[in-house]
């Protein structure tokens, strides 16, 4: 298939890429740009390991055509850490055991980021509902709720400190 030139905006950087029109966003991220943080773990959009944010909405990059994302802001896990340091949610996932093998973690972090952006004070039911788009086989999810609560508290503290 003949390649076509497209322009993608990923993690606030602009990339010009020659890709096959049928190329999926996940494959472009992983193979063309070596942004291998987004993972492939299923064949049927059931696991969420490839979750990225498209204009701040959590989407599955394994079932998105890369070409369809032109003109949108794509955020991958590589764009989450802040100024070279861990974002509150990344630190909290480490501290509270939210990540074990880590393969599903980037997808979860993206989902949680979108949850935190939408709802600054999610209840456990809100968290369960939001995380149900992603699968984890290690943690049983329990420690993730603690991590999210701790990240929200840390962010609030951070904001309070700035004021």
């Amino acid at each position, binding site marked *: *298939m003949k390649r076509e030139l497209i322009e993608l905006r990923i993690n606030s950087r602009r990339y010009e890429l020659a890709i096959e029109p049928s190329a999926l966003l996940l494959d472009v991220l*992983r*193979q063309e740009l*070596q*942004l*291998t*943080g*987004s*993972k*492939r*773990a*299923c*064949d*049927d959009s*059931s*696991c969420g*390991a490839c979750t990225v944010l498209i204009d701040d909405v959590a989407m599955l990059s394994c079932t998105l055509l890369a070409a369809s994302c032109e003109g949108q802001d794509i955020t*991958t*896990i*590589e764009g*989450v*850490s802040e100024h070279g340091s*861990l974002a509150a*949610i*990344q*630190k909290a*996932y*480490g*501290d*509270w*055991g939210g*990540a*074990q*093998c*880590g*393969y*599903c*973690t*980037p997808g979860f*972090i993206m989902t949680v980021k979108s949850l935190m952006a939408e709802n600054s004070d999610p209840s456990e039911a809100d*968290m*369960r*509902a939001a*995380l*149900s788009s*992603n*699968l*984890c*086989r*290690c*943690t*049983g*999810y*329990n*420690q*993730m709720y603690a991590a999210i609560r701790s990240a929200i508290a840390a962010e609030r503290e951070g904001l309070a400190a700035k004021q």
Partner: protein
Amino acid sequence: MSTDFSIVGKSTAMIDAAEKTTGTGKYTDDFSLPGILVGKVLHSPYPHARIKSIDTSRAEKLDGVITVVVGQDAPRTYGILPVGHDEYPLALDRVRYVGDNVACVVATSEAVAEKALELVDVEYEVLPAYFDPEESMKAERDLIHDNKPNNLEKDYHHVFGDPDKGFAEADEIAEARFIANEVTHAAMEPHSTLASFEIDPHTGNPGRLTVWSATQVPYYLQHKLSLVLEMPMAQIRVIKPLVGGGFGGKSEVIPLEITAAVAARKAKAPVKITYTREEVFWAHRGRPRTIIDLKTGVKHDGSITAVKARVVQDGGAYCSYGVVTILYSGALLGALYDIPNIQYDGYRVLTNKPACGAMRGHGTVNVRFAFESQLDELAEKIQMDPAEIRRRNLLKPPCITVNGLRVQSYGLPECIDKTVERSGWRERKGKLPKGRGLGVACSHYVSGAANSIIRSDMPHSTVNIKIDRDGGVVVYTGASEIGQGSDTMTAQVAAEVLGCGLSRIRVIAADTDLTPIDIGSYSSRVTFMAGNATLRAASDVKKKIAAAAARKMNCAEEQLTFRDDRIGKQGQSAPTAPPRPEELEVTQAGASVSGRVEGQILRGSLQQKRKEEGPKDWMTFEEAVVAAIDFHGALTGTGSYAPPPEARGGKHKGAGVGPSPAYSYSAQVAEVSVDEETGEVTVHKVWAAHDCGRALNPVSVEGQIIGSVWMGMGQALTEEMVWKDGMLMNPGLLEYRSPSSVESPEIEPIIVESIDPEGPFGAKECSEGSLAATIPAIANAIYDAVGVRLHESPFTPERVLAAMRAKRKEKALNLTEGVDPTNPTRFREHGGSLCFKGKGPQRHALDPACRQTPAGGAD
């Protein structure tokens, strides 16, 4: 043993947590090499067939295809067990299950490789196939492996004590058949292997092979690669990058791991093969469907007099870990409670399905489900509280069980007490509203097998430590981090022994060129065995540092304490107190200086200064390290661990499996509700107490307990591999129904520390033992809630509803294809002599395989 620890026992983030949360950590599929090619495997569409011919010429002509690998390219058998070398990486002349590996196309891209798969022409002669283990055992012809009469992989018959006498003494006896359906690991990371050959500078030909693979057992992989590729092990380097979960699925060599290397050799370029999720389901190696015929006798006082179990496992088409699985099922019947008389008959049967292997709780889980359910029934018969009957049968350690297992630390009594207390068992049991119930169950597991798969006297774990003048501690271990926290445990143990901070430790793990042999991450052996080896290696190097420091400080080595990055004289400098700010400054200046070029000069002046001051009461870690290197030369330490002979079990046939240097224990209470209209079971909460000896990293231990309970809940309620004529009906994460966050209960982990006399700082396993108790705890809770006793797992709405309708004497609906879940006699889909008649699985009209036009030409 001192219990005043500075590192172990304190929760810490895993040392690789940031790699995982930022996405920078590399898993096998994240690696690429210049000129890399993609391999795709062609799988068998038939459950049992002879390969008459394979013609790869059409595929090879496709633009972008480099080569096609077939069985003849590596016609050597292998298998994870020395007694089970029955697999080829690619089939030679027979395929034995739908999904068996036939050929591998190597191409420049995945799309081309996929297209080429359709152009490989394979001619099969379909053979009768066997799907039901009890039918398979009657087979006389068309055997799955010609050297296995009656398709029987292995059978064991053990009698300990006098079971007949035991049953004669019993006041109540229960006897029933239990069926546990098949489950699989479904680790989030699909299997993936990258293989690359280096050109040998002397011969000019391909020489050393490097393999990056998602494996729990790098050393075994190196060994099997050497067997099949007929290369010396020293020419093969296996590197285990981050692994996205194992649960046993990566604890043996999966055919693609060898195929990738064979393909790289044939294609003369690096080749990566990554399975799709569907292929992962076919590769399988999960927990076999099991029939358990169980009979248990108890006295009125609750004591168990005898147990008789007949276990039949549907092992699939290859041996895999099968011989070990069937032995574990029997051996671990004995080491949880004090059972004086046991009879065990185990049959591992071959069928035309993907091979089953090791999965979390290897061999123990299904039998434990049956046993703990039956114990509950007996408790009711003798009108005893289910928690109490378990207390009445405790072992009295230290002891040797009737089947020869040595038990030392035994936290089960405390586990039972704590779960009962936390769950409000006494106040709430039997008093919950209709449709809601509580159930209790216990389980246990080994902390590594006392006998390795390869019978030899080699240590099971070896660890090397190197410390250099920069004060950095590098620990080299073959132990495989697969997400359970093995690297972090290693760093913690080394840091605790050396009294230095965690940030000083660098762990280099699981690279056969760099790290000493460790037999892998399976049987929950790493904390106990690699932990002990780390402890010994760190103590070895500590001794050298102590000798030099003692000289500097004019004191005896025994007077020194290592803590908080300082080495001090006991009782002199109170080294537990945090260093004063000015001291800290000196320390840090020293640290930053000693690594630099001009460090030599500066250190010289520092030493001069010290000389003038006379002997000190304490030294920084760096100072002591520099002193030790000056004194001894290189500063290295090594340690290894092999289980003691007295923990290696009895002498009977099959006694090698089951013995462990230590066992973990778990007791759980599950609270469930059952929807009486739909049969849907909801687990509200599980209280899980686990005796892990000592929790080295409590947050990780809790994570392992929660994860085990959660996985047990999956097997109890939703997860099931559904088979139809050898075809897997649900090869996807959605259809397999791995529970999401919405279906997952709150799990309260309760850590019980029995401090094992031989574990590192007293630690034992914590990652597998909890799984087995969850299934019977839920089954018992369902009984408490609605009064139906399910003997077949998982307890899906259909099964629960069928059982409830039968109990209410309502008209039977055909929900479970004629199998009564409270009294199952056979597996659901394949009763009788359902034999594959050779028509081939019916494919959908739009399936590419049905296309009449030659594939690959259209676009």
